């Protein structure tokens, strides 16, 4: 008794309440396709009422707006042969609600003793979903057409490094078809040229850490292309409102640029080799003069060797600055000092030379006279300031307004005030200083007699303001 009552309650719920509460529009048709009932969702969706609907033939309903060829096919050709149909899509311009895409699920239902049964139609409005899908497809095609216009080959990758799409340039350059790329891992392409552990490591961090890859260089033999150098750049890409993200990987062919750089380097090395050999001969010849020369002249010859070494250092820096870059004065002075210490002082010397410079860049065009000026001032200090062979020389460069100030200070004996006529070789050193300062458009500042030793201060308009992104040359 209780069971049959319970079943009755369930039947009642199934027949009314459940039907009324489901979000899909439901229609029940008899075997002649007359509507026996519809639910609230149907009336709301199609802006109609039970009076207008129940008892009507489905094709007659609402000014025959349901007389749709595709629905006729479903009801008259498909349903009679099948008990259920799912996902039947009907696109139609409904007079009351406009153009809509409906997803229709149909089921034939039989009651005991009723062989004809009736048809339950569940109609779901999927217009917005389909429109979104169409929009997404349009966006994708637009993106792909933009991607295809980019000359550099590129691919879009999933998290697992499989290719979602490859640009036309990629397919053309690497001689593969779209079908061969889609769904394939990027590391499996070609002869596994991109399967480089360091690159793999970087690529695996692009999406989780949002870390781009800039200019990863790969040189290899590529089928049909020969030896090539590619620069790889990768970054995370995601659509606004879309939680999934993908990786854009761009391949820049830098083979020609690399070759030009290598040619330039070979040429620079060749020229450098020749020049340095010639300077070596000059240094060697001076060394032989030193052996035959009376002691007072030896220091002069050695100073000449130091000047030649300074020019050699400068040559290296100038050849590097051929791209118009600036020279970092700190590193530059340290190289000059290294060379000068080796040629004039030697490892056992009690004289030290220190460089204390701000991080400043100077014009490469005028680095040679600047280097020779520093060399002369330091050489003068070595020659005159330390009769007992011990002492300290400090080379300092600092910015003063828009010029640089070079200070060469020693803690030696200082300049003798009563020196009336210095020897010709000493005068020569001072003459060179005057020449280089004049050449550089600089000014020698008054000496500071209260300080011990000798301090020479020179202001020079050598400061170079680097354009953004340019890097100075480290010696």
């Amino acid at each position, binding site marked *: 008794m209780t069971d049959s009552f319970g079943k009755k309650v369930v039947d009642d719920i199934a027949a009314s309440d459940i039907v009324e509460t489901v979000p899909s529009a439901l229609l029940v048709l008899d075997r002649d396709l007359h509507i026996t009932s519809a639910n609230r969702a149907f009336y709301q969706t199609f802006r109609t009422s039970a009076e207008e609907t129940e008892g009507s033939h489905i094709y007659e309903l609402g000014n025959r707006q349901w007389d749709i060829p595709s629905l006729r096919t479903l009801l008259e050709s498909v349903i009679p042969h099948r008990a259920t149909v799912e996902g039947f899509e009907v696109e139609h311009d409904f007079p009351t609600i406009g153009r809509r895409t409906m997803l229709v699920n149909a089921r034939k239902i039989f009651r005991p003793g009723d062989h004809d049964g009736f048809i339950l139609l569940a109609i779901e409005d999927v217009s917005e979903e389909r429109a979104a899908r169409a929009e997404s497809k349009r966006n994708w095609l637009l993106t792909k057409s933009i991607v295809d216009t980019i000359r550099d080959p590129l691919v879009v990758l999933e998290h697992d490094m499989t290719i979602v799409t490859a640009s036309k340039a990629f397919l053309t350059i690497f001689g593969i078809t779209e079908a061969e790329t889609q769904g394939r891992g990027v590391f499996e392409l070609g002869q596994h040229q991109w399967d480089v552990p360091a690159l793999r490591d970087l690529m695996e961090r692009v999406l989780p850490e949002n870390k781009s890859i800039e200019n990863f260089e790969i040189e290899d033999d590529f089928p049909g292309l020969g030896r090539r150098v590619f620069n790889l750049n990768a970054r995370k890409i995601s659509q606004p409102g879309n939680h999934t993200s993908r990786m854009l990987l761009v391949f820049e062919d830098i083979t020609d640029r690399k070759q030009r750089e290598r040619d330039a380097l*070979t040429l620079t*090395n060749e020229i*450098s*080799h*020749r*020049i*340095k*050999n010639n*300077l*070596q*001969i*000059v*240094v*060697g*010849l001076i*060394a*032989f003069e030193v*052996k035959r020369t009376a002691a007072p002249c030896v220091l002069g010859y*050695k100073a000449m*060797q130091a000047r*030649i*070494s300074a020019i*050699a250092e400068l040559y*290296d820096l100038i050849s590097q600055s051929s791209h118009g870059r600036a020279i970092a004065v700190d590193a530059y002075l340290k190289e000059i000092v290294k060379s000068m210490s*080796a*040629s004039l002082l*030697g*490892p056992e010397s009690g004289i030290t030379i220190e460089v204390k410079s701000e991080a400043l860049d100077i014009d490469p065009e005028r680095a040679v006279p600047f280097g020779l000026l520093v060399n002369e001032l330091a050489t003068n200090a070595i020659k005159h300031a330390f009769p007992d062979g011990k002492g300290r020389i400090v080379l300092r460069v600092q910015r003063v307004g828009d010029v640089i100030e070079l200070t060469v200070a020693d803690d030696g004996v200082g300049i003798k005030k009563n020196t009336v006529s210095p020897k010709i070789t000493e005068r020569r050193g001072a003459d060179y200083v005057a020449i280089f300062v004049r050449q550089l458009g600089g000014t020698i500042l008054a000496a500071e007699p209260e300080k011990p030793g000798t301090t020479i201060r020179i202001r020079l308009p050598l400061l170079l303001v680097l354009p953004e992104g340019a890097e100075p040359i480290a010696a």
Partner: protein
Amino acid sequence: MAVVLVVEDDAFICELTEMTVQDWGHQTLSANDVDEALEILRSPQHIDILFTDIYLKTAVVGGFELARQAIKMRPHLCVLYTTGNFVTNDMRALFIGDAECIRKPYTPRQLQTSFEHLLAAHS
């Protein structure tokens, strides 16, 4: 007194270097390219120091290859490279063992100091 093999593609520099080294009381041998140098190294001649230019006319980094082969034949040989070019870290990676390098143009004093270092380290 040490025996120095000078390998230098510029004949004039080679001769000047030999004269300088002989002035310090050392004995010298000389070669202008890798093959000539290897021939001397294969001979029973005693040699203490190989002083080689890195950039030799017949081979861009011939000095590296020469030193590599020389050390295979004579593991206790002192090696001193010279070059007029920049010595980059990549180049340093090609130096053998405790070899030193002296930049051109070097003065006799710089060369002598390098020899003394090497001989002291190998004594």
